[in-house]
């Protein structure tokens, strides 16, 4: 089964084609240009890189959150539209789980963090496990301090990765001391291949959705909704 994976939930745009989980082609850019410009030409190119034509794609996986609201919408709109026109199922993959996937077999705690601004990160806590990481907690939108408190529930070292690392590495080191480990830059960014692979497993398990069923997982309300709720609560 050929699956197209789309990742646009962070400043990175990444796409990949997997065949039964095996990566055939992948493209990634982290060039500060908007996904709106990058994404569709990258999808077109990665399908060609894989030596395929669009009718051979049998499913689409897209990272559906958490992440940048705008990025999520570009990724989801694109994925849902292609799924509709190509008449194939689509699945949503956690941005955080896709980040954790390549580190999975290490057996230790993995904590992908995304820069959520307002001094917060989007984070999930996973236990590394062969095949697929085990979700212990998340996804959360928390400050680094709150994240450290949550992590106190488990013992052992924690590997952080994701675009929240360059911003919060020092703070997390101060809070967690030697428990905190950080991956090298090369493993920091989300990958289209991980989205496609996780998506493949879901699709193979018959969990594919129609394009109308898939929705974004923003985790956070919009600021206007938060303010309105606060006003009505008083």
């Amino acid at each position, binding site marked *: 089964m050929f699956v197209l994976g789309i990742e646009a939930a962070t400043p990175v745009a990444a796409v990949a084609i997997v065949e039964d989980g095996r990566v055939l082609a992948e493209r990634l850019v982290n060039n500060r240009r908007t996904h709106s410009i990058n994404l*569709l030409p990258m999808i077109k190119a990665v399908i060609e890189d894989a030596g395929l034509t669009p009718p051979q794609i049998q499913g689409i996986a897209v990272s559906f959150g958490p992440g940048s609201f705008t990025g999520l919408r570009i990724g989801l709109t*694109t994925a849902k539209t292609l799924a509709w*026109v190509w008449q194939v199922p689509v699945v949503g993959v956690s941005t955080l789980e896709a980040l954790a996937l390549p580190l999975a077999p290490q057996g230790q705690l993995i904590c992908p963090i995304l820069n959520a601004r307002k001094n917060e990160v989007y984070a999930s806590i996973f236990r590394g496990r062969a095949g697929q990481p085990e979700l212990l907690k998340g996804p959360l939108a928390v400050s680094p301090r709150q994240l450290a408190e949550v992590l106190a529930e488990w013992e052992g070292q924690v590997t952080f990765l994701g675009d929240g690392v360059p911003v919060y590495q020092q703070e997390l080191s101060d809070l967690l001391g030697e428990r905190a480990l950080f991956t090298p830059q090369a493993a920091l960014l989300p990958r289209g291949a991980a989205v496609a692979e996780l998506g493949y497993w879901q699709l193979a398990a018959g969990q594919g959705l129609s394009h109308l069923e898939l929705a974004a997982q923003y985790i956070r309300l919009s600021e206007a909704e938060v303010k309105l709720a606060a006003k009505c609560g008083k």
Partner: protein
Amino acid sequence: MGITILGIETSCDETSAAVLEDGITLRSNIVSSQVDIHKKFGGVVPEVASRKHLENVHPVIMEALEQAKVTLKDINAIAVTYGPGLVGALLVGVAAAKAMAYALDVPLIGVNHLEGHIAANFLTRPDLEFPLLCLVVSGGHSDLVFMPHRGDYQLLGRTRDDAAGEAFDKVARAMGLGYPGGPLIDKLAREGDASALKLPRAFLEEGSLDFSFSGLKSAVLNYLNRAEMRQEEVNKADLAASFQQATVEVLVEKTLLAAERTAVKTIMLAGGVAANGGLRSLLQTRALAAGCTVVYPPLHLCTDNAAMIACAGYYKYLRGDFAPLTLNAVPALSLGEEKY
């Protein structure tokens, strides 16, 4: 079947899709309004609008195809609004249009939202002959546009502060009428006396075709504040009528000056405020006296809709003016400028 264009519009708080054949046969025009959602915030909230667009865009496009009794294979091109507008909102329509154009292997057409509003006139009047003059008035714009030929837009005047529709919204909010303000003031103005209150009309320098509505808006707000301090009753109908008259007089006056200067005989109205009854009737009367004809789209095509985008897209299709798959949303796109 002729040339079938699918239009998509998501620049503000309406998610819309339309199927248009040969530029004139409107087979469907589905508009999903978010007005009830934004009402409780007192105006359009960009993030809330963008989220709704993502939820609505596919059901709306599917409904447009279904109502038009066409399938995806019948579509010859996808036309989409790529600016001006709210960037997050625009991006949903642009992403959907690009993915459709790629997956269906048909041309992608990027349409300027204002060009769409103007084109709403051609849906019912494809016979209109150039040169034409158009007054585009909406919540975001008050522009006087001269069109010597099709696709050629020359901006003669624009607002220097608030757009006309924006002034309507702000005044309506201050009067406690609610949102959106335009239709509410228009309705109330019919019961009021337009000469009851003396409000300023900003004509700016001699001969200028630019607009300014912030002084008028402030005058109304000051009037309301003073009345509140003195605990005086405000006659809302008279205030609405006087405010509307002051706005409309300036719009009409400058439009006729522009028509005279360009020697144009046909004046078009476009944009949400083109639905305003006061504006339509005063412009009709004054234009007739000046020997000009006024045309405007039917009411439901004045507010944001995808039929007008499909119509503008149709004429671009005829010219072979297609956009690449790198098309991006351009929130501050000007009329006559192409950014792709």
